[in-house]
């Protein structure tokens, strides 16, 4: 037989350029294979994962592998645009950059000179927040944040307040040792490849995976055990497991005594201003009873054995340790499995079985690693004790009005099992652990023509840190850090437009946004937001007067902007994935990375951050201007190399010093970016063995972190099972202190700010009696929110989104696959196609997030299924709760952090005649970039 002769070793590419992916916040390393195109210029031919990269170790998801279609997408903006038609029409004229930046300067200069707070600068899915916040600080506005408030601030803030870090970019399970991995909530996208790699790794070893999620897709589909919980009850389920474990004495008492505030004494002084605060010495150190001496002593003294049981008598009062309060609270029968089972939709025996399995694995399968280490009290340990139980969670439990306390409860569960920062458990990634006390506090002091007094976002420790003006009104346009949501560490991007429109707390002049699709999938109440953006006042001027927007693509938001500053794609830009920002470290190493222009733009576009360097200089912002008035940073690459946050510490930790041989701290190295490129686009510095567990208390880790510039001095701390900042807000609500909450919030603050985690329902506020079904969204693994639909390959995977209904609801409503249903919430209604799904909580419906598109956006044809059958649940969700008759409007947010409560959405379902298209329908917007080609067939190489 004659087989054809094949070339089995074709040339793969002419050159490989290594940079960082941008398709989600995973930030994997990629090899971009370049070939000479027909015009002789190098073109992107193929993208694969970088095997040397710490995040993805060579693997790459669908989004990353489809990067070539992102870079070639017809939806890319080409030139600055100035609006010429009414807002929302999509009518623009292309202008030159000189004119665009001049216009922006004309709008921004008077704002800065007169009242910088009149600029609201919010940067959606920005991966350069340490840079953009620096720019906003220099401008002087207090109104800056990124998208954390409508994403997962509950997870981040609860983790940092409780234990100095949360999941995902803050830490990871000990994949090499864990034997039981429990995953809560919709977590398929956070983070992406490392979780898949980890699950693959532990399943290969035969470790058990338990998935707690109303929807059994993705990671939950491969979980050994699936708990199809009632949405919003995770906290109650967790507290029931804590109840079982405490009652059975299945806790790591040694761990609780040494490393947490469980033994710290709580002041018992009913009615006084310090009642319920932690007892401290003159230096502010928490006090415990030393079990060896029986004496009151600061927790951190050499040789101290903090006592979990002992009480302290003084002035006729008995002061008890935190642990006693935990026993009072969690041993109560309200948390017995029988008493939560119906509400959670989990049989009592199953709750017990899971709690028992956690106990069995944590304590019966305990193991030791032969690493000697010394703790902060100077005590030497010759081994590290492993507790091979680990947890992960993200937005699924965060995006509820009870999300902060639920996240706190989950951390409490991990901590009583002694599984945080031990072998087999959950491990922090540098620069974490970093307790709330080591983070900045929020700053909001606005002075004309002057930078802000410090970083915008941070962690409050009591009423004194709230961002309030002298008259007690909110300092920030989003009302972050106010009594409505005191611990809103990431700001509230979802409230900016509605507050600015209402002039509450004040009017603004310029809204400047980046990568935030607020007139579509990134807002609650999409229709309402569109109306707010287009409404005019009695003088015929837009209520929100000027809107500058930057994006790389023709998103729905472009049409609502007055000035559009086109960004580059991810392969055409500099970026730094910085330790000052949202790092990509591993539990065993500090790591950071860069993006660099592996191709030159073929359009008249500028990287957003480079553009801000230019605009910052035009506005004479101090941080962006030399003494002679000239532009300080030529572009973002120049900033990345030459900016120093403190002497010797800059955006990149690697290859510092004149010779590029210093890590963490070191002088500016002009060749730093070249060194990163030579090294594959990233930098890794490993933590020495023996320093890599018990990080918050391990003297060797603390010293290493100081050397790397992560801390200025060693700062060991105790995990806060009991949150003293929360108690301080309660005290204010009880009438203590100068800063007092408004009357209508007093009761809520007293109830919700419990210093020990609690659970509460928000079903009544969402009118569950009339709207008995929960509606959820999740992001498909193969798509990054709205970005995926412009990608010719990815939109073949998810071109439209049915509403998935459980079998019971299909039957009850006489629905069959392909039928349409009207879905009604207290706020609105949509009519959408349905599909049956059996592996789903029986009272929950769901759909893929952000598949639905506005006609005319993203360079899609107007009859694209994304626009005709696709839909958003956003139309059903309001930024405010339905009125409850008290004359007040309450935010649809967590009362502690302000996190948008997307997943509290309640609806009812009924069969509907099939409409021509999903409802509500929207008029087409005129595409500023035209439409894409009909067919694709290309090969870069010859």
């Amino acid at each position, binding site marked *: 037989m004659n087989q054809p002769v094949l070339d089995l070793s074709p040339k793969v590419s002419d050159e490989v350029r290594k940079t960082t992916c941008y398709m989600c916040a995973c930030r994997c390393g990629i090899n971009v294979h370049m070939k000479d195109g027909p015009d002789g210029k190098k073109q992107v031919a*193929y993208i694969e994962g970088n095997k040397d990269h710490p995040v993805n170790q060579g693997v*790459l998801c669908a989004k990353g592998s489809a990067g070539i279609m992102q870079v070639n997408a017809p939806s890319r903006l080409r030139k600055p645009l100035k609006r010429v038609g009414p807002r929302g029409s999509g009518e623009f004229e292309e202008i030159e950059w000189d004119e665009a930046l001049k216009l922006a300067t004309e709008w921004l200069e008077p704002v800065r000179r007169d009242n910088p707070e009149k600029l609201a600068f919010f940067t959606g899915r920005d991966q350069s927040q340490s840079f953009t916040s620096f720019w906003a600080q220099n401008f002087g506005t207090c109104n800056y944040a990124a998208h954390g408030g409508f994403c997962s601030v509950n997870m981040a803030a609860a983790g940092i307040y409780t234990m100095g870090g949360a999941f995902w970019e803050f830490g990871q399970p000990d994949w090499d040792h864990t034997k039981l991995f429990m995953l809560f909530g919709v977590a398929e996208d956070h983070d992406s490849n490392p979780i898949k790699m980890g699950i693959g790794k532990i399943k290969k070893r035969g470790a058990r995976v338990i998935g707690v999620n109303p929807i059994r897709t993705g990671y939950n589909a491969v979980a050994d055990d699936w708990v199809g919980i009632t949405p919003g009850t995770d906290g109650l389920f967790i507290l029931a497991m804590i109840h079982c474990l405490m009652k059975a004495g299945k806790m790591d*008492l040694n761990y609780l005594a040494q490393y947490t505030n469980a033994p710290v004494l709580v002041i018992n002084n009913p009615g006084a201003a310090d009642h319920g605060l932690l007892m401290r010495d003159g230096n502010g150190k928490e006090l415990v009873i030393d079990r060896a001496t029986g004496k009151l002593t600061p927790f951190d003294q050499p040789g101290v054995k903090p006592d979990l049981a002992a009480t302290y008598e003084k002035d006729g009062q008995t002061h008890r340790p935190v642990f006693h309060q935990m026993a009072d609270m969690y041993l109560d029968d309200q948390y017995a499995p029988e008493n939560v089972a119906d509400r959670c939709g989990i049989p009592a025996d199953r709750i017990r079985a899971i709690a028992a399995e956690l106990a069995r694995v944590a304590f019966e399968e305990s193991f030791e690693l032969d690493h000697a280490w010394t703790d902060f009290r100077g005590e030497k340990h010759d081994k590290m004790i492993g507790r091979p139980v680990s947890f992960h969670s993200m937005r699924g439990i965060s995006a509820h009005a009870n999300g902060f306390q639920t996240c706190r409860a989950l951390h409490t569960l991990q901590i009583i099992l002694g599984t945080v920062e031990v072998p087999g458990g959950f491990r922090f990634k540098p620069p974490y652990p970093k307790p709330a006390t080591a983070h900045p506090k929020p700053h909001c002091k606005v002075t004309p023509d002057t930078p802000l007094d410090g970083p915008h976002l941070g962690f409050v420790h009591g009423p004194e840190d709230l961002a309030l003006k002298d008259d007690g009104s909110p300092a920030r346009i989003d009302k972050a850090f106010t009594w409505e949501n005191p611990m809103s560490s990431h700001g509230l991007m979802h409230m900016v437009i509605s507050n600015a429109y209402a002039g509450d707390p004040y009017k603004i002049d310029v809204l400047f946004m980046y990568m935030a699709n607020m007139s579509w999938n990134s807002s609650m109440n999409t229709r309402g937001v569109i109306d707010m953006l287009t409404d005019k006042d009695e003088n015929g001027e837009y209520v929100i007067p000027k809107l500058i927007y930057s994006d790389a693509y023709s998103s729905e938001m472009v049409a609502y902007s007055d000035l559009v500053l086109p960004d580059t794609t991810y392969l055409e830009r500099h970026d730094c994935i910085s330790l000052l920002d949202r790092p990509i470290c591993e539990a065993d190493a500090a790591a950071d990375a860069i993006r660099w222009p592996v191709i030159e733009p073929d359009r008249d576009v500028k990287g957003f951050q480079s553009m801000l360097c230019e605009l910052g200089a035009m506005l004479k912002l101090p941080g962006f201007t030399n003494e002679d008035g000239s532009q300080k940073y030529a572009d973002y690459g120049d900033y990345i190399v030459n900016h120093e946050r403190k002497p010797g510490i800059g955006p990149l930790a690697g290859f510092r010093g004149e010779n590029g041989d210093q890590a963490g701290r070191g002088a500016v190295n002009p060749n730093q970016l070249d060194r990163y490129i030579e090294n594959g686009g990233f930098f890794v510095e490993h933590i020495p063995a023996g320093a890599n567990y018990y990080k918050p208390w391990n003297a060797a880790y603390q010293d290493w972190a100081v050397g790397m510039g992560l801390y200025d001095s060693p700062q060991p701390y105790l995990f806060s099972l009991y949150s003293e900042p929360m108690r301080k807000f309660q005290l204010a609500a009880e009438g203590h202190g100068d800063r007092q909450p408004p009357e209508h919030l007093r009761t809520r603050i007293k109830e919700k700010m419990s210093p020990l985690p609690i659970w509460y329902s928000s079903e009544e506020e969402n009118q569950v009696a009339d709207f008995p079904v929960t509606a959820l969204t999740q992001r498909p693994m193969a798509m990054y929110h709205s970005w995926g639909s412009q990608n010719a390959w990815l939109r073949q995977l998810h071109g439209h989104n049915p509403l998935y209904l459980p079998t019971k609801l299909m039957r009850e409503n006489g629905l069959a696959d392909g039928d349409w249903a009207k879905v009604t919430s207290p706020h609105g209604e949509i009519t959408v196609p349905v599909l049956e799904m059996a592996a789903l909580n029986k009272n929950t419906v769901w759909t893929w997030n952000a598949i639905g598109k506005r006609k005319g956006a993203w360079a899609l044809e107007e009859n694209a299924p994304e626009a005709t059958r696709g839909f958003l649940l956003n139309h059903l969700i309001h930024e405010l709760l339905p009125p409850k008759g008290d004359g007040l409007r309450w935010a649809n947010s967590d009362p502690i952090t302000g996190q948008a409560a997307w997943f509290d959405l309640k609806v009812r379902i009924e069969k509907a005649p099939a409409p021509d298209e999903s409802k509500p329908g929207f008029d087409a917007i005129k595409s500023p970039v035209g439409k894409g080609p009909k067919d694709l067939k290309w090969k870069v190489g010859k």
Partner: protein
Amino acid sequence: MTTLPAQTDKKLGLVIDLDTCVGCHACVISCKGWNTENYGAPLSDQNAYGADNSGTFLNRVHSFEVQPQAPDAAAQLIHFPKSCLHCEDAPCVTVCPTGASYKRVEDGIVLVNESDCIGCGLCAWACPYGARELDQAEDVMKKCTLCVDRIYNENLPEEDRQPACVRTCPAGARHFGDLGDPDSDVSQLVAERGGMDLMPEQGTKPVNKYLPPRPKDAMPEFDVLAPFLEPVAQEPKGFLGWLDKTLEKL
């Protein structure tokens, strides 16, 4: 009619673990990217930005729900990636009127010689798995090549000489090797995990194997685990007494 080799020197193929596949489509897109740029005609897309969009893919992931028989048992979702299985008795080869479809003697890979393919589509009809797709732009039959231009490619580092889908799979659910060698890693994996043929009744003798999902929702019942939750005391006061005693022992 085209003949199959009596036997092949190796039986290269994939082993796909249905227990760990999370359905992320990484393999689908990585395959699309490599094979657009490499072997034969690019994988084209029609109506790429419009309605009724479609394109050529050599690998697709399907998802199936499974409802176990037991009463009250939770339904399961299985992600099922599917590409050419490089069958030993490949009906797509024997049906080919021009000899364009063939099975390689040295490694058993089933390929299409595009210069001889007339786009008649008989092979796609003959394949019981639906693993072949006729490219609408080029009018030639496209199918998984097992990345024949990667696995022997001396321009790639040795560790990268594997199919693009295997290299990229984040969950490690895809394995590549010689299923004709009982000692190979993939053969051992198949032996350990009870690897299965897809639709064996078709008599195609597929080389690719699927590892079945492990039993789900099989955590021990609470009564077995009960000793781990034996209460230390019935009353809160008793709990503090237990605490004091236990701390004494530590």
